[in-house]
Structures are given as C-alpha cells and as structure tokens.
C-alpha cells in the first residue's frame, strides 16, 4: 500500500510541469552522462596515472598524483607551445575574418544588382567539409601549384616557395585557408546584425549631417555590440579546435611548427597512446577553455534566454 502511494506520488510529480520537463530533457542528459560525463570522470582519474594500454587494464595502474600536470606545465615546452600557438592562431584568424566579414557585410547593405546570387556564392565555402578544404589548399599551396603561379605573375618573377615546408610561411597558408573557409560565417552574422539595426538613430544622425563613416563608427557599431561579441566568441570557439586542415596540410609539421592543442592531443593520445599523460593535457586544455568561455559566454546566454 505504501509503495503504491509512492508510485502514485512519482506519477503525480511526473505529470506536473516540472516532472514533464525532466522527462523531456532526460534523453539528452542521459546521452550527456554516457558519452561525455562518465568519460570525463575516467579522464580525470587517468590524468593521475602513467597509463598506457600496453600496461594492461587501466584500473590496475599506479596512482602518481599530479606529476603529469607538473611535467606538462613545467617542462613540456611542446605542449605549452601548442597552447600558445593555438591562442595566437585564434586571435589572428578571427581578427582577419572579422575585418573582411564586416567590410563585405557593409557593402551588402548597399543597393546593387545580383545581390541575392552573390550572397549565396559567398556562403559556399562554409558548406565544404574541412577535410576537403584542407586537401584543396594543400594542392593550391604546392611549390608548383596555382598560388605560386599567380604570385609570380603578380610580382613579375618566378616564385617556387614551398609554403607548407617553411615553419613561418606555413602559418600564412593556414591563415588563408581558415579565412577562406570561415570569413563567410562572419559576413553572414554581421550582415544579419546590420540588417536588424533600428532605422531611427541612423536617420536622425543623417538629418544632423553625420558622414557615412561617423554613422558607421558611432551609431551602427555600438548598436551591434552584442551580435559582434556573439560572432567573435562562437568563431573563436570553433577556431580553437582547428584540426582537420592541419592534419591534411602539414600533419603538425614541419617539425612541430603547426602543432595546435588538437594535433598535440591527437598525436600523444590517439597515436602514441600515452593516455594518462594526454588526459592531464586534456584537462589543462579544458580548464583554460572553460575559463575563457566563462568570461566570454555571457552575451550569448543572455540572448538565448
């Protein structure tokens, strides 16, 4: 009898709004627990062990305290450099994409023929899968490829630069690749932002005799602040994961010159199987990312609610 009333209570709760909501978010939470949360706990545990699959079962491995973390932070310059490189890449790539995207979006607020079709064309790069983008630009940047060929026409003398072999120039190639792939994202979001601006302040400024540049700088940009932050944050979050293009174009090379955190973790964890050590690296990467996201994510959460 008692059990029966408990069941009834449970059923009653589940038919309330809160209970129903729990049923609705249940599936995704279950998926999250199984595919992300439990693995994450495992990763936390492994990060305190020196585990490698050849040592047998992971639960029989020794516990070595935070020594993986200490090694990573104090003496693994390869890891630290990959972190710094990723950060620098994100800042520069997102900056370039934002600049070009804003310029293009501004042009698209004007009237001209063929706007619709040109808009569709400009969005095409986003639809190409990253692996194919990487492979396409791998061909384009070959020493005897089309990029050098066009470059020689422009400078008037033959150039055979090996873009993907030079540890510095390779970054130019990667930045151009990423800019080609994702400037359309900035263009699209910023155009949506420009299109949603209220008309009144702009009209008022015009009546007062403000120049187009003044209107853009002092009225439109401040009004778009939220959308700009959203575009920058989301693009930066995706840019930091950069893996596919580098995997194809350089494999992290020459040497370790293009090793980002994704490539580093992949090589140490999924190729060399230093699982314990790489788990610690992954936790550090997660802490760094979550800290940055925590600071930057507010405007997005505000829009979502």
């Amino acid at each position, binding site marked *: 009898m008692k059990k029966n009333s408990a069941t009834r209570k449970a059923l009653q709760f589940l*038919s309330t709004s809160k209970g129903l*909501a729990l049923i*609705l*978010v249940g599936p995704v939470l279950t*998926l999250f627990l*199984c*595919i*992300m949360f*439990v*693995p*994450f706990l495992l*990763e936390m545990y*492994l990060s305190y062990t020196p585990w490698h699959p050849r040592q047998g079962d992971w639960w029989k491995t020794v516990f070595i305290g935070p020594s993986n973390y200490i090694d990573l932070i104090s003496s693994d310059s390869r890891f630290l450099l990959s972190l710094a490189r990723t950060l620098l890449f994100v800042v520069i790539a997102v900056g370039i994409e934002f600049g070009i995207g804003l*310029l*293009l979006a*501004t*042009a698209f*607020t*004007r*009237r*001209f023929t063929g706007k619709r079709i040109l808009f569709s*064309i*400009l*969005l095409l790069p986003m639809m*190409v*899968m*990253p*692996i*194919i983008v990487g*492979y*396409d630009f791998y061909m384009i940047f*070959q020493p*005897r490829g*089309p990029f050098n060929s066009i470059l020689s026409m422009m400078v008037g003398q033959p150039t055979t630069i090996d873009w993907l072999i030079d540890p510095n120039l390779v970054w130019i190639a990667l930045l151009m690749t990423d800019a*080609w792939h994702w400037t359309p*994202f900035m263009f*699209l*979001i910023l*155009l949506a932002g420009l299109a949603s601006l209220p*008309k009144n302040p*702009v009209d008022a400024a015009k009546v007062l005799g403000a120049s187009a540049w003044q209107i853009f700088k002092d009225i439109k940009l401040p009004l778009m602040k939220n*959308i700009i932050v*959203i575009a920058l944050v989301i693009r930066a*979050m995706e840019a*930091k*994961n950069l*893996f*596919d293009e580098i*995997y194809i174009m350089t494999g992290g090379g020459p040497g370790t010159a293009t090793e980002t955190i*994704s490539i580093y*973790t*992949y090589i140490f*964890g*999924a190729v060399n199987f230093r699982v314990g050590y790489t*788990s610690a690296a*992954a936790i550090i990467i997660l802490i760094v*990312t*979550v800290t940055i996201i925590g600071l930057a*994510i507010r405007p997005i959460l505000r829009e*979502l609610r």
Partner: protein
Amino acid sequence: MPKVVEEEKLEVWGYVVITVAIILTLFPLYWLFTTAIKPQPDWLPSSPVWWPKKPILENFIWLFVEAGERASFIITGAQRFEPALKSITDSAIVAGLGTLLSVVVGILAAFGISRHKIGGSGLPFLFLMIRMAPPVVAIIPLIVLYSHLGLIDTYLGLILAYGLFTAPYSIWMMKSFIDEIPRELEEVGLVEGLTPIETHFRVTLPLVRGGLVATALFLLILNWSEFLFALVLTHGSVVTIPVKETTYFTLSGNQYGPQAALGVLAAMPLFIFGFIIQKYLARGLTFGAVKR
C-alpha cells in the same frame, strides 16, 4: 538573405571588395572541380594546368568500380584502393542516424526549456559547453570507454557521439523556433482536453515543421563533415567520407584526381542543403541567438 532597410547605392569601393571576394571564393572551388576532371599527368605538373586539355570522368567512375576491373582506366597506381561507394553509404548512415538522434533529443529538450523553463541558467550553460569544450578533450577517454563497450569501429559508436555533440545546436535551434509560437495555442489545446505533452506535439510541433527541417539539414551538414571522431573511433569497418579522403594520400603518390572527385561528390549535397536553409543559417550557427 537578411533584408536591409537602408538601400543606398553601392560605391566603387564596394564593387572592388565584392568582386575580389567572389573571385577568391570561387577559385579554390574551381580548382577542386577541375582537378576532379583532370587525367593523372595534369595533377601536379611543372606548371599548373588551369583547364585540362582532355577533361575526363574516370576519376568519378573509378570511385564506383571494383579494383579488378580498373585496368582499362587512365588512372594508374590506383588499383590497391577499395572503391569509395562504401564510404558514401557509411557517411549517409552515420550522419543520417546521428542527426536523427540529435534532432529527437533536441526537440524534447527544447520543449522542456522553452515551455517548462527547466534548469534555470545552469542547463543552458551545460548544453553550450558540450559544443564548446574541445572535442580532443572528449576523445581520449571515449577511446578507452568505447573499447570496453565494443563500440570502437561501429556505426552505433559514431552515431551516439554525433548525436550528443550536435545536440547543443538542435536544442537551441529548435528552442528558438518553438519560442516563436505563442503559448496561448497550447492553452487552447489544454482546454480542449489534451494533455500538456500532447499540446507540445500535436499543436506546436506541426507549426515549427519548417524549422525542424532546417535544423535537421543544418545538423546533417555538420555530421557529414565530421572528421576527428571518425578518425579516432573507427579503424576500417566503418569508413566515412572524410576518413576515406585521407587514404588517398600515399607514399607512392597522392591520388589527387579521385580524391577531388569524391570531394566534389561529397560537397554537392551540402551546397544544396546549405542553399535550402540559407535563411536559417545564421540562426543555426549562433545557437539561435541571431534570429534572421
């Protein structure tokens, strides 16, 4: 395309910017496409071949022909490779079912958040974190877990991973569509004797059908393109297109032609999907934060 109210004429600088942008956008696509119809001598010649003297379709045909029957084709050195047909069906299975899983859990959660306001601010943050945490952080322990569960190199393993990692997009996109349907409609349903859950699925869901299709196509683009999980969690029984593409890089010479051909084939559906949902792209890419 977002409609802009103010319509002044485009000045010279604008024409220059747009022309350059269009050329730069199209050239790599042009290069991919022409490589796909080039015979082997044109793949990496001493100076670039802008248009093949004799365009061929063998690169495409080759993708669907068994190894033993390839002797008559122009491409040499390709005999060792399996045809790519399996990678196309594998990609379709994994991306399709991964998307289905993501959309189903996404719709349910979106109703929970939109109509029942569950989770306060913690849940939205959690759902965004699933996407914003670096995937490399997730894959290392996932390899260990999957090998215990026998999920390595299976369709199910990839489908579960794809379902979860695109769920933030499906949740937020669907929520943004559901939010646009007035709650009053559901209240009418309640008065007429429907249960709350019935009002969600029989009143509101039919009204967001368009949004549902847009969400599904958007997720399909993401899942069809995914590489890292496929690379790490499969070893040959399941081969998606992105992984297949990497097998054309070999020591004995890269198979540029077939690789580009498969690239073109794989890009086509995404161009079409992207065009269909163009109106909703900004919304999808920003988790519903940008509504146009």
